[in-house]
Structures are given as structure tokens and as C-alpha cells.
């Protein structure tokens, strides 16, 4: 089957490649670009571990073909940290609030939350839970993930993070 030439921007870098049309975006990112942050969890569009940011949308890269991303601007977890190498507020928030245990879902969680906070910079806990409903975590019970995202929202808004009373 004829391969397709694609050109796209990934974490600010221009990438050009020849791909089989059937190659999924997650395989392209992990195997051709060696970006192994986005994980393959369920491989059935449920778990969200493969979430990346594509042209301002959170997408499950196991359910997009690499050819569909031709011309797109993509950000993965590898491109979330600040340019000077310090942690993004979300990464800091997940660390400070213990928003992970095994860490498998974390790249997808943070990448999804990155887009969520751009669309809704001051979400309620309920809005966070609704906004990350496409990302599954089997360890934390989500409580600390929600706190981690609230921590980041507060930091990005320049206000002091205060944990809600339990």
C-alpha cells in the first residue's frame, strides 16, 4: 500500500515522515519519534492514557491515523514542561498533591488537564471531574488528581491554592 508523506509540528519541532495510512498516531509518536510519554492503555478509545493535544483539541491518539494529523500542531507530555525545564504547574500540582500512584495514566491526565484549563481556567471540582471523564485511573480514586489540577489552576491564575475542606 502506498505510503503517505506527512509534515507536522510536535512539541514545537517540525517533523516529516513517510507513513503507512494505517499507522495510528500513537504508534507514530512512540515508535518513529520515540515520544513514549503517551501510553497505550486500553487501545480501545476508553482509557485516555494516549491523550495528546492536537490543534487545540484533546484526542486519543490510538483512534487517529497519523495521516490525519498531516499539518497538525501536536503537543505531548514531553512538551508540557516550561521552556526553561522547570515543571509546568500541572506537573508540579500532581507531584505536590500526590495525583499519581503508578503513574501510567499521568501523561494522559496532565495533557488532558492542560487543554481543560485553557478552556476553563477556574473550574469547579465537578467541572474537572466532567472534563477528565475520558481519562481512567485505576489507583488514585481521582481525589488527588482533582486536587492537583486545582493546584495548577490556582498557580496559573496567580492565586494561593487552598485545599477544600474534606
Amino acid at each position, binding site marked *: *500500500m*502506498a505510503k*503517505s508523506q506527512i509534515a507536522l509540528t510536535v512539541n514545537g519541532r517540525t517533523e516529516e515522515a513517510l507513513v*503507512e*495510512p*494505517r499507522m*495510528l498516531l500513537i*504508534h507514530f509518536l512512540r515508535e518513529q519519534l520515540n515520544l513514549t510519554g503517551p501510553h497505550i492503555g486500553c*487501545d*480501545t*478509545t*476508553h482509557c*485516555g492514557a494516549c*491523550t495528546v493535544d492536537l490543534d487545540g*483539541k*484533546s*484526542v*486519543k491518539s*490510538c*483512534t*487517529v*491515523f497519523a*495521516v*490525519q494529523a498531516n499539518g497538525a500542531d501536536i503537543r505531548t507530555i514531553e512538551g508540557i514542561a516550561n521552556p526553561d525545564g522547570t515543571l509546568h504547574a500541572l506537573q508540579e500540582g500532581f507531584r505536590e498533591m500526590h495525583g499519581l500512584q503508578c503513574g501510567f495514566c499521568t501523561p494522559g491526565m496532565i495533557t*488532558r488537564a492542560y487543554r*481543560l484549563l485553557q478552556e476553563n481556567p477556574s473550574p469547579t471540582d465537578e467541572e474537572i471531574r*466532567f*472534563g*477528565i*471523564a*475520558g481519562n481512567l485511573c485505576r489507583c488514585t480514586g481521582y481525589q488527588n488528581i482533582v486536587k492537583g489540577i486545582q493546584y495548577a489552576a490556582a498557580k496559573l491564575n496567580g492565586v494561593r491554592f487552598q485545599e477544600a475542606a474534606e
Partner: protein
Amino acid sequence: MIPGAFAYHRPSSIAEAVGLLTQLGEDARPLAGGHSLIPMMKLRVASPAHLIDLGGVADLKGISLDGPDAVIGAMTTQHDLIGSGLLVEKLPILHETSLLIADPQVRYLGTLGGNVANGDPGNDMPAVMMCLGASYQVAGPNGARNIPARDFYHGAYFTALEPGEIVTAIRIPVPPAGHGYAYEKLKRKVGDYATAAAAVILTMHGGTVATCSIGLTNVAETPLWAEDAANIVTGSTLDDATVKKAVAAAEAITAPAADSRGPVQYRTKMAGVMVARALARAKARATA
């Protein structure tokens, strides 16, 4: 999981897309948001030799008003529907329904056209479109035509579309200002298809129901338009006895499959419960 090999086509116009589908025949499938088709391809349940990606056809996108109708391009995503101020004002049931489809990531890519054209009885928009009296604008090798949603669904994954045809837009008569609406969906968890769901659009006049339309999701091989149930409540105050009769009429037309969502009797009863809840909520929201 890796899909079977296929050739990728990305037309830039409706005519080009229809030309490719006609020329390539049964081995070709149109690709909209891909969130039904790509999982099926990964499981090798579907193995099209050609994929016609409609993502590059600008004429398939957008939401506008055309006289008394709202016209929504087939490639408009659920995320776009949720964010549309026009729809929040004119057709809030689409906002409510879109938020109950799958999860945020799926809604960024899943399209209205794909949702209505796929013929999957689990999809939410078909019953809403039957409820609203919408029609689908279709383009094909023999030109354009219009198919009422209520005539579109022939069986699970069997629709009125002829080979080479694609849905290009969905045309919806805007309900009167002040109408009541509700989409009630029972599901086991976020992202699941409905155990049963009901769409209601109604108008009230002096405390009684002036007009009413009801659609049902995932309780038969096709979405259902519950015409008898709607006729029963029209003219009533939605008193308990009348609602009970309407619920029975809605339950009578269901034929759900027994699956992991529950046995036939349960899903039938839940269809009735969704109808009763949707009627009550639509009434509470109606201001005219």
C-alpha cells in the same frame, strides 16, 4: 491493535468525495470523526480497502440558520455543537445531548453527521433528530436529496443511504421559542451507550401540552419515534394517569436486545422511566 492496510484519500469537495465513493464502490468507506469506524478497523471487524477522509471538505462544516431551520454541516463535531451559542439559544436539546455522548476526547472529533449516518442504534443523535423532525441532506452520484430522519433508519447499520451517498448536512426545524426539551439517558458509566434514553420536545399552552414529540434511543434495532405516546399526552396537563398511558405506549414499541446493559424487561421499563422523566423535565422548562 493495527488495522488492515488501506489506501487513504482526502478530497477537498463534496463532489470529489462522492466521485471517489462511487468509483471505488463497496471497498470504500467515508471517514468522519472515525470514533466508530477506527475502533472497528482495529478489531478487523471492518477492513475497507479505501478510506475517504471527509476532514478536508470545508463545505461539510458549520452551523447556521436558514429561515425557520437550523442547518448543521455533517462534519461539525459534538464539541462544536456544545460550544455553539446559536444552538444553546435555538436548540438547547442538542447541547444537552452532546454532553451525554462519550467523553471529552471523543466529542472533540466525533461528528454529528457520523453519529446520525452510521445507523448504530446506540448513537444518541438519531432519536433526537426523529423527535425534532429533522431531515438529512444527502449528496450522491445521482445528485442531492433530502431524507427525513423518521424515514432514514431501516435496521441496525442499515439506512436509506444508497451506495456512493454521504450525508452533507442536517436540517432541523427550530422549535418555537419557549419550548420545553429534555434528553434523558440512563447509562452505566461515562462513555457508555444508553441502557435506554428518551428525547422530548414539547410546547405548553395554558397549562396543557399543545404539541409534543418523543424519540427513543437504543431500545430497538433502530431509533424510534414514539408517535402514539406523544399523541396521548398532547392536550393533557401531563397528569399522572396520562403520563402512565404514554409510558405504556412508548414501552409497547420497544424491542431492546438483552445484553450487558440488562435483560429485555429491564431495558423496556427503563425506556418508560426515561420518557416519564423527560416529559416532566421538558414541561418544567417550557415557558410558552
